[in-house]
């Protein structure tokens, strides 16, 4: 099962197994990691699952839709590496991916 590393806002690092087909958000919710609130449940509505995905890992996921891009444009702490983790669907090639959870808005 792909292993995903989450760096959460308090600086702690959590490595969890996330089954292929689930989202990076799901992996965080499943393990009760702090930082990803995920209040809309993953429907790309709320922007409370904001993470930074560094360059080398970005290509392992589908590109952001226009909707996601717009939500992120004005999100608190938005950076070029910003993604909504509910839209990052894990595949078999995502083992070792590392994301940094954005501070809450």
């Amino acid at each position: 099962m792909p292993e995903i590393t989450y760096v959460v806002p308090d600086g702690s690092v959590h490595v969890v197994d996330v089954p292929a087909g689930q989202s990076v958000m799901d992996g965080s919710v499943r393990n009760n990691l702090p930082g990803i609130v995920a209040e809309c449940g993953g429907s790309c509505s709320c922007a409370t699952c904001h993470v930074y995905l560094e360059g080398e890992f970005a290509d392992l996921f589908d590109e952001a839709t226009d909707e996601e891009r717009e939500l992120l444009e004005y999100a608190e702490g938005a950076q070029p590496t910003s993604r909504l983790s509910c839209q990052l669907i894990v595949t078999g090639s995502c083992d070792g991916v590392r994301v940094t959870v954005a501070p809450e808005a």
Partner: protein
Amino acid sequence: MTTEIPHAVRTRPVAGPDARVVVVGGGHAGAALVGLLRQGGHRGEIVLVGEEHDHPYHRPPLSKKFACAELEQVIRPREFYAEQGVTLRLGSPIVGLDPAARTVTSAGGDSLEYDVAVLATGARPRPLAVPGAGLAGVVGLRNLADARVLRSWVTEGRRLVIIGAGYVGLEVAAVAAAAGVPVTVLEREERVLNRVASAELSAIMAEAHGAHGVDIRVGALVAELVGSGGAVRGVRLESGETLSAEGVLVGIGAVPRTELAEAAGLECAGGVVVDEGARTSDPAVLAIGDVTVRPVDGVGRMRLESIPSATEQAKQAAAAILGTAPPEAEIPWFWSDQLDRKLKIVGVVRSGRAVVLRGDPTSGRFALFHHEHGLVRAVETSNSPADFMAGKKLITSGAVVEPRRLADPDVPLRDIVHAG
């Protein structure tokens, strides 16, 4: 089964990471709270008592996704609770709260002791007070069982009449119409979304629903539901007209479930009254979610029936229990999926403010900025997440904007937000 609680227990300080927390209600607020408590390092026992048998699940899909497989979405995986050391007591309605003994009592007669009780009992559909409201084939929409009924009706192609053109009514109507089911929405007020949206957005959405085959009747007063053999067959209006119906959804709002709180003598005023820390009038009882009336910055005390509010209050309650810094106040926001439109509304819409339209309503992508002398108070957006997010920033920043620039789609929002 109640045992005498020693005085020392009764008077020990509420809260702290070792408190025994009993959360009454397994909806969004309650489920969010138990996760947040463990995230925050809570060591004490946590019990989540839910009246339904299902594990806590997302309710927004009940009206938005009831016809498809995405209806059933648990908030956390079922194993989550045991892994987090949270005792789940499902299918266990709570019928009593005794603040003096610090116990809650289940319908089965069990008594649970608490250091902190959290009321997260939510709301129930407001009943329709007309003859025939008890006929078979008349439902409200609050839980999975209700949604499954709606699904079966849509699958069977039953002619549907929806009473109430609020979010729930219009979301269900949109799904039914998309499935090709004949659907009529009756609204007693003169416009749809009367309670929750501006007149401008109401007009736009009424037109959009009409174009998608939803028959909307405003100013329609229901006199009676008529049936045969105990099942609903039609809706008679006060105008004398009778609409045939094979299923009726009543979506005329929700009533906070304050019974426990009222019987326990907690202050209630159209909801359990709480402060910005989710505290009720009893020091050992908190309340969160749809059951509360809560302070909202710049507005006063109100009910906010929304997931974001439930989540925010869960954070407040976690902080109050753990004794950590309270979270910053959030701007209320709401979302609703109707037809091909994702509506997102930030701030509390009030009449009497100037409204600026940005974008083209016929395209489905637009925003309505509500402002007072250039101070943005609320923004209603449709298929325009950038306007939503930028609107939230404008409200938070308190920047004074030039309405003309907001209305001009050639002026990038980025410039407006940052100029503020």
